[in-house]
């Protein structure tokens, strides 16, 4: 509120050093806290000034996506120091960075290659793990071979073993049987095979006890030819395990077998 009595105080332009007992009007003034004052450029030459003088309608243009955009300058933002992350070889301003370029690159690529080597190794391990899962398991492999002591099998007898879940016939043939089988001409057979192709030692016949017809187990020392006879459909095999009569198409299979010594047979 202005009181009329105070009005003259507004026209004073002297500061009171010694109070004159008059009540001064409470003039509110805020001193500007500006520290930067912009001085408009007026040109330094008459020509520059002349070019800047408007001679027609004055308009002001501004826009959101044009060059009148103002970026407020911040002077309180310090430039971050990244030297903790920089390599020592490029910190010095007196040394050319290109001098250490190769060694820096080598290091980087070496790390990359190390990862490459590691992943190649792991990849190989993983792949071989999977591939090996396709091969036979250890318990199967453990039963894959069978050792047979030949001394236990008397002449003229056919002994049945279990090998890889299947019956295995080992027959100790007599001299007579050998002669008979040797003399059978291969051309007269359904599945032509000479006896010599089927046995390693003439006195020992090693065949799988699975009928080639439908997989029954033939009976030893039976049938028309004195070898094996399949009771299921009447296939007759001779003493060399060859099909001679009946529906089976093929001879009994001879597994891989070796005779490491005179009285030992290893099948598988």
């Amino acid at each position, binding site marked *: 509120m202005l009181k009329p009595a105070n009005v003259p105080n507004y026209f004073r332009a002297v500061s009171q050093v010694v109070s004159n007992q008059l009540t001064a009007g409470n003039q509110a003034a805020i001193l500007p806290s500006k520290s930067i004052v*912009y001085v*408009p*450029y*007026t*040109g330094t*030459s*008459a*020509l520059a*000034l*002349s*070019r*800047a*003088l*408007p*001679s*027609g*309608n*004055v*308009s*002001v*243009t*501004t*826009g*959101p*996506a*044009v060059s*009148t955009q*103002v970026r*407020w300058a911040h002077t309180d933002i310090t430039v971050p120091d990244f030297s903790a992350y920089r390599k020592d070889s490029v910190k010095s301003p007196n040394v050319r960075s290109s001098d250490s370029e190769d060694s820096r690159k080598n290091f980087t690529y070496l790390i990359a290659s190390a990862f490459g080597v590691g992943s190649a190794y792991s990849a190989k391990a993983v792949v071989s793990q999977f591939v090996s899962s396709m091969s036979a398991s250890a318990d199967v492999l453990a039963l894959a071979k069978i050792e047979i002591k030949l001394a236990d099998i008397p002449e003229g007898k056919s002994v049945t073993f279990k090998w890889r879940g299947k019956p295995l016939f080992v027959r100790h043939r007599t001299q007579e049987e050998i002669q008979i089988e040797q003399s059978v001409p291969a051309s007269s057979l359904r599945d032509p095979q000479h006896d010599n192709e089927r046995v390693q030692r003439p006195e020992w016949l090693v065949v799988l006890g699975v009928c080639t017809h439908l997989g029954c187990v033939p009976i030893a020392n039976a049938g028309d030819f004195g070898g094996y006879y399949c009771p299921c459909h009447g296939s007759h095999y001779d003493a060399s395990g060859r099909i001679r009569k009946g529906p089976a198409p093929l001879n009994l299979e001879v597994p891989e077998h070796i005779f490491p010594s005179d009285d030992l047979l290893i099948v598988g």
Partner: protein
Amino acid sequence: MTSNLAKFPLFRTATIRGYAQLAPLGGISSCELKTTVLPNKLVVASSESQSPITRISIVFRAGSRNEASDNLGVTHVLRNSAGLSTKNASQFAIIRNIQQVGAALYATTDREIVSYTLEGPRQAIEKALPFLTEVATQQVFKPWEVSDITNRLLLDIATRPLQLRAIDLVHNAAFRSGLGNSLFIPKSQIGKISSETLQHYVASNFLSGRASVIGLGVDISDLESYAQGLKLETGEGNDTPSPYKGGELRSNKGGNTAFVAVAGEGAALRDAKEALAFAVLQRAIGVGPHIKWSTRDNGLLSKSIGASIDNYASTTFNVSYADTGLFGILIAAPSKSAGSLVETAVKLLKCTKISEEDVTRGKNQLKTSLLLDGESGTHTLQNIGTQTAILRGASIQSPSQIVALVDSVSANDVQCALKKAAKKLTLASIGNLTNVPYLDEIK
């Protein structure tokens, strides 16, 4: 985000031209200007200049002369609010989408008009056009965004060049209110222009009867269909006349230079003949050197000042508004010599006999500058924009048409124009005013 913005197939019908007849970058400046007025009184004007750059402008007769004492400075805030979030597009979307296609969007204000202009390559304009619609007609003025531009207002005020302030002052002295309003917000008003004030100003001034849509490098039928889609309130709004009153304003700011504007009443834009006479007079008195490194022109003012005073700059300014105009001399000089220069200028305005030779020189210079300005799309657009917003479709002329009219100006018309200007003078000065005389001191 932009899916609900209407898209107009504006340039489907654009003619494809062969290389042999490729138009210059600025377009053909002499091409025909077509004008139509829509049922809602919106004026559409277009000139298919074949320029590869298309410019589309939405102009409203809403310049600073429409400000009242309670919303002084609203056009400055409005100008800086161009590009703030609108009904359908965010601030980010507007800037991003326009910059992405390589177009530019800006707002221009003067005492008569507020215009929003989009310019860019033809294909870019088609994509960016919905954002021009948004910025020009769908403003929402979110309060937090409006308050954010306060710093920008302060910067704008702080960086005004003194010659611009001299022009502002001479308007203020000559017209007091209305046309006397500055293009810049007064410091005391900063922070007081609220979102509501802006909305009210836009609602009362951005009306179809006060608006026009201008295109350069656009076919008129395309522009018409675009203009029909604009959602503008119909109406004419209120125009307050702002007659010339005259007076004197001084602002002593120190420094080395004084900027002094001596002015009298000029021609209204509606009076084309008188406006041309004033334009010829302006050139006859001289608008500063055209030649590089020369320090003075060949005009009457330079001649009457003579070679005795050096290191000053002067120009004659001539502005035509809807109902009146301002014509005068603007001098920038070291404070020592400012006094005598102002006296010479006043004397020149008061008692000069314009010779036939001066008129011919003035005509030639006017024609040259009209044609040179006509080659600039921005300039032409602004020129046509002002004409359409004020004259509402009646007798709108392209720069090349105006040139043809210049010859009809006689020496007598020019002399009459000078007489009108000198009838009541206005003086406004800013800078170091130690030696600048008051108006009543000048004999």
